[in-house]
Structure formats: C-alpha cells, structure tokens
C-alpha cells in the first residue's frame, strides 16, 4: 500500500488538532479546581483530542503505518511553537536544533514514503488483509 496525498493531509490535520487541543488543556488547567473540574477550554481540548484520534485513524487508512506514524512527530513542533508564542515559554537553541532535526527526519520519511509508493507491487510482500 502506498501513502496518498489524502493520508499526508489527514495526519497533518491530526497533529494540528491535537496540538491545539493541547494548548486548550494547558489554558484550561490554570483555572482547574475541585469545585470546577471542567471548564469550556478543557472540554474543547478533550473534544479536539478525540477528533485528532479520528483523523489519525483515517490517515492510517490512506497510508503506510511506517510513513504516517513518524510524521505524527510534527506534533512536537506545533506544541513547541505554541508554547513559545502563546504561553511565552523560553525556546533555547537546543530546542530549535531538536525541531530542525525532527523536521529533517519527517522530510526523509516523506521521501522514503514516496519511494515505497514507486516500488509498491513489484517486490513487496502483500499486506495482511483484514479477515
């Protein structure tokens, strides 16, 4: 099985959804108390987490696990950027280096994914079918 553009788009959307959910959970956690165990931000954050899981499963349907799964590491990048821009958390050079490393890795995965697409059906063992 090859990874389609739809697969790439869905996993990208899934990481954007989960990192936005993450930011809302972080925002909602500041006003969390025993008397108010749930607020709008927390509820929205949890809902976005659920939506992200659905998008991820749909992405897996349109692509290889060994391509889609590592691309999910984009989440690390969005969370770091949100932490810096929205919450004003420090962004040391080491973290930027890590983000560049992750980006490079994702680019390589994309390249590898497009290559397995090209060779699909030639010498690949057939994927296990669902019974």
């Amino acid at each position, binding site marked *: 099985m090859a990874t389609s553009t739809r697969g790439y788009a869905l996993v990208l959307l899934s990481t954007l959804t989960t990192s936005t959910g993450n930011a809302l959970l972080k925002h909602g956690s500041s006003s969390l108390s025993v008397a108010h165990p749930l607020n709008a931000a927390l509820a929205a954050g949890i809902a976005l987490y659920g939506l992200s899981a659905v998008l991820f499963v749909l992405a897996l349907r349109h692509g290889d696990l060994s391509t889609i799964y590592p691309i999910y590491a984009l989440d690390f990048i969005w969370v770091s950027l949100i932490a810096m821009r929205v919450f004003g958390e420090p962004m040391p050079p080491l973290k930027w280096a890590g983000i560049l490393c992750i980006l490079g890795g*994702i680019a390589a995965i994309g390249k590898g994914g497009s290559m397995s697409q090209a060779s699909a059906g030639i010498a690949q063992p057939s994927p296990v079918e669902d019974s």
Partner: protein
Amino acid sequence: MVAPWVLGGILLDSLLAGFGSLLLKRGSSSFSFSLRGTLGNPRLLGGLVAYGSAAMIYVVLLKFEQLSVLYPLGATTYIWSALLARRYLGEDVNTWKVCGIMAIIAGVALVGLAG
C-alpha cells in the same frame, strides 16, 4: 543513571504503544463514524486501549524519572512501529525511513534535553 526497572518499563511501554499503532492501522480499514462501528471493531478498540494504557503508564513513569530521559526513550516507539509494520503489514521500511526515524528520535532527545 536510569533505574533498570524504569528503563525496562519505558521500553515495554513504547512497545505497547507500537502495538497500539499496528492495531489502529489494522482496524482503520473498517473504521466507521459510529459507537457501534467502533465497539464492533476489536482491532480499533484494542489499539485505543493499548494507546490509552501506554499513556497512563508513561505518566506514572514520569513520577520516577525526568522528562528529558523518558522523552527520547519513549520515542523508540517509532522504531517498534516500523519493525511491526514491516513484519506484520509487509511495508517497505527503506533507508530513507530508517534515517528519518533516527533523526526524529535525535530531535526528540534534543527537545527533551532543552527542557
């Protein structure tokens, strides 16, 4: 130094998450937008349970070890899921993918070290 049981725990935990991703992939082909569709899809359900359990175990392990140590070790999930994808799904895990996974793990380690 990481306590041996924490090291073993986080590696097993990553493996569990790797199996979770395999089950989600196997269940994704018959995914449907309904509670009945989800409950009647044992692979999808198994994947969700494996993922959820792995996340809870991770939080427990965080009580005993720093995030900068657990972060990169947890990222070994990328290795497990690729190995499982090759073994059980017959996917092509080529040099580009192997290099990509290594770079991602190194990147996650740097992000973890930076705090």
